[in-house]
């Protein structure tokens, strides 16, 4: 039954393709239990959509006004506001090049560099996730536990958006260190390719990849903090 019920949410959200939808509907016609589950899910969605918004029990405005009016002796800086429509400051690639980061052609971080120049916006769609790395780096896919592999892919996909929000100095430091980690990963993979039965190399590669996950998570957390 799980095989069918697992797809019910997608079905209710119109997320199934024609073929899968048809098969599921066929199954639903014959299976009362699944129909029951579906009705239950529908009820949940309905209830969620009907929730009322309630203002806070205490009026929060006085406290908010207090905070924003701190420094009331200062005239609002209308004249100093940047004019509307001006683009935000873009992180320019020449800064990273000046920091001496070598261009390499593997890993999501450096693929991003290869595709981006100072004038054009980040080409997020073209960044290669680690899962599609060239064949000689297939150890990464083999050795990482699926959930860690997935986390790595997710984080790399979010990397560009995250970096847009950070100040250039922090980005440079993080990029420099990510590159170091990826160099270490590459060295471990090359060594493992020559000596596949080597347990130390296998585990070292995994641990280095986990260090990479850790740094990427740090970036994502920082970016989230910089609204």
């Amino acid at each position, binding site marked *: 039954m799980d095989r069918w019920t697992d797809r019910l949410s997608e079905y209710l959200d119109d997320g199934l393709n024609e073929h899968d939808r048809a098969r599921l509907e066929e199954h639903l016609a014959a299976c009362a239990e699944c129909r029951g589950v579906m009705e239950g899910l529908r009820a949940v969605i309905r209830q969620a959509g009907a929730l009322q918004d309630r203002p806070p029990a205490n009026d929060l405005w006085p406290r908010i006004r207090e*905070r924003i009016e701190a*420094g009331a002796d200062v005239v609002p800086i209308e*004249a*100093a506001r940047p004019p509307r429509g001006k683009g935000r400051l873009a992180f320019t690639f020449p800064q990273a090049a000046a920091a001496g980061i070598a261009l390499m052609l593997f890993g999501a971080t450096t693929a991003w560099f290869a595709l981006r120049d100072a004038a054009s916006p980040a080409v997020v769609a073209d960044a290669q996730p680690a899962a599609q790395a060239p064949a000689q780096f297939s150890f990464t896919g083999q050795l990482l536990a699926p959930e860690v592999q997935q986390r790595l892919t997710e984080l790399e996909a979010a990397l560009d958006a995250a970096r847009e929000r950070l100040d250039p100095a922090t980005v440079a430091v993080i990029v*420099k260190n990510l590159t170091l980690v990826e160099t270490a990963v590459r060295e471990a993979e090359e060594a493992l390719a020559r000596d596949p*039965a080597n347990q*130390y190399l296998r585990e070292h590669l995994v641990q280095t990849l986990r260090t990479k996950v850790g740094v990427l998570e740090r970036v994502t957390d920082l970016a989230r903090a910089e609204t």
Partner: protein
Amino acid sequence: MTRFAALAMLSLAAGMAVPLSAQRTDTTFSVGRTGTLRVDNHQGGIRVRGWDQSSIRVRASHPSRVRVDITRSNDIVRLEGEATRGPARGLEYEIDVPRGWAVRIDSHTGHIETENTGGDVIVSTVNGDIIVAGVADARLETVQGEIVVNDARGGIRASGVNRGIRVANVVGDVIAETVTGTVALENVDAARVSASTINGSIQFTGRIRDDGDYSFDTHNGDATVAIAAGANANVTVATHGGSVESDFPVQLRGDAGRMGELQFELGRGGARLRIESFNGVIRILRAGQR
């Protein structure tokens, strides 16, 4: 609004930090024996010290467009800078708290130091060193800065990225990890230690407990572990391009362990001790000798 202030405002909006006349806040208020101090500071140094009073003293210097906001809720005291626009910059703190209070600091830029607060310390920052002395548990993370811990009775978790980590005189487990920089652990008495770096060395002196678990891992640096003569441990060393030096006799077991590793015993065996350096030299020294 004076012309000066208006110009300063323009500069601020353009992103330059023009110091307006500095203001000082100095306030003391009584608190209970236990509690948590939370400081959220975007930019500026923070120094917190433990003292014997039942009160908290907050001294801060800041530009006039920034103000210190102190809120209290149950036994949590929270300090935050408020600016008329944008994040509060240039706010420097010196805070005295009752010994035993927990301290939690969220910062972005600025040097952070705690001294003899005696309780737990949690610090998260980006561009700043973290120097902590006299704590219970500590959880510290930074990106650009160095982490230094001295004198702790509790677990230490230190995460850096671009600089090294130094931990000394600790009774409690230690996890120390960075990417660039040396991890140096001195006089550590722990059941578990995990130290790792990519581009830096690892140094350890401390007690090896019979039931302990100790792991040292670097990619491009040396790993040096100093062990007292009576230690009982199952040691695993592994390197790819480096070498191993040992003050202790190393008798390899018949099956030579797993591929890529050397395993041997110290004393009766017991503790799990793992020392790895991909490219560097692994040194196992007798403590007290150099």
